[in-house]
């Protein structure tokens, strides 16, 4: 069981900055994120896009913002459970919570701060009517263990980096690899596109373009896919069909935690501390909604700051505290590091 003071669900910019604000109050944080890396949308969707409205940064790349946030919170030694989705929450008698991921990792904390953005990133599923019948029976949206495909006939569809990279990778493992894409052009990195071209020329990858997988056939598992290429429709035998069309955020299991949901977001009772209808659970950043809400990173930072002050009061109801400027108090890390403003030296002139 992982124990912490504030359990943050979502390691995007808001969740990361909450670690800093909590750290100033000597509260420890642990973050859970469904993605394998920190940074949320900034890392997953637009790392190379410039952001122009982070105060004090006339221009910063989303990926650099995440790198800087990670550096800023380093002294507070946050814990991370990455690549796992927070699935269930249980409230204990003492008012604290246990949050369990889909992989069974348990986290215990008196405070839960949901900073889940638009939700956890889940694979985009192509609209093939019977696709859910074949999930885990030949259709996989994520490649967990490439060895699973050893000596199998695999059909991949998609035109981005993951479709290209996995097609390349699986040529050494699978019996056959076929890549189906709606266009002749691919969206992935140039090296990957060239590598696929080379493997195609060597006859190691079969490319079917411009085409689309439109149907799935099989009795107790996938046996064939139906491919539409222009006016022609044909079946192709295979053991696995792996559609790789990127990820899209879904609110997911959090929607069933008994929180008030409005407009696909968690309603917070007030903007004093962004607490939800369940005391001890806060919602900050893009995941929350309240009158006047703006989904901006800078607003998420503000919300994270207020949440931490309230969380401190909740954990230590009898302690008095006033907010301290970092220019005055400096930053005292849990790792023993200390940053502070240099003291002025008084020297008299003879």
């Amino acid at each position, binding site marked *: 069981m992982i124990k912490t003071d504030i359990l943050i669900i979502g390691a995007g910019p808001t969740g990361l900055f909450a670690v800093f604000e909590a750290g100033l109050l000597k509260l420890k944080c642990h973050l859970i994120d469904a993605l394998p890396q920190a940074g949320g949308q900034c890392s997953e969707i637009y790392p190379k896009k410039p952001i122009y409205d982070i105060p004090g940064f006339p221009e910063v790349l989303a990926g650099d913002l995440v790198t800087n946030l990670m550096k800023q919170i380093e002294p507070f030694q946050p814990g991370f459970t990455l690549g796992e989705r927070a699935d269930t929450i249980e409230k204990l008698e003492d008012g604290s919570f246990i949050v369990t991921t889909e992989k069974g990792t348990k986290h215990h904390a008196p405070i839960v701060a949901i900073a889940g953005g638009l*939700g956890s990133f889940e694979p985009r599923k192509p609209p093939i009517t019977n696709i859910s019948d074949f999930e885990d029976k030949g259709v996989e949206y994520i490649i967990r263990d490439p060895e699973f495909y050893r000596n199998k006939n695999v059909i991949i569809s998609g035109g981005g980096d993951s479709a290209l990279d996995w097609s390349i990778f699986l040529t050494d493992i699978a019996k056959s690899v076929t890549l189906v894409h*709606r266009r002749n052009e691919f*969206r992935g990195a140039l090296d990957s596109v060239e590598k696929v071209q080379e493997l195609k020329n060597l006859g190691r990858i079969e490319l079917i373009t411009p085409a689309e997988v439109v149907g799935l056939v099989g009795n107790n598992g996938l046996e064939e896919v139906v491919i539409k290429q222009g006016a022609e429709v044909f079946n192709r035998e295979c053991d696995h069909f792996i559609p790789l069309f990127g990820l899209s955020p879904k609110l997911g299991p959090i929607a069933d935690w008994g929180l008030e949901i409005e407009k696909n*977001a968690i309603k917070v009772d007030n903007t004093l501390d962004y607490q939800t209808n369940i005391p001890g659970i806060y919602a900050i950043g893009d995941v929350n*909604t309240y009158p006047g809400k703006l989904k901006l990173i800078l607003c998420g930072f503000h919300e994270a700051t207020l949440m931490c002050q309230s969380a401190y009061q909740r954990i230590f109801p009898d302690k008095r505290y006033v907010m301290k400027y970092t220019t005055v108090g400096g930053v005292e890390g849990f790792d023993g590091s200390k940053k502070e403003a240099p003291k002025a030296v008084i020297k008299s002139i003879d």
Partner: protein
Amino acid sequence: MTDIKITIIDRQGIKHEVDAPTDMNMNLMEIVRSYELAPEGTIGICGGMAMCASCQCYVLSGHELPEMSYDEDLMLSEAFNVKENSRLGCQIFIKEELDGLEIELAPEV
């Protein structure tokens, strides 16, 4: 301020005629959101960077639209339910010549 009229068929098939300002640098996806014609979180997920296709729409009228950028074209190549007249709403900016435009929102994926 000049407004134009745009007809939007939402995902339930209901037709809405709305006023869209031409002087606010707004795009079609934002018009849909400003009139709340699709639930928040189901449209404009990437914020309008042509990176998610949640604002895909079908253009029903014969208006001449700005040419598709490389990014939009490639995003549509990976989107679902794509038709000949598919565009990403976030890439279509409201201009006077689009007065009378009629579009239909693509299904949510």
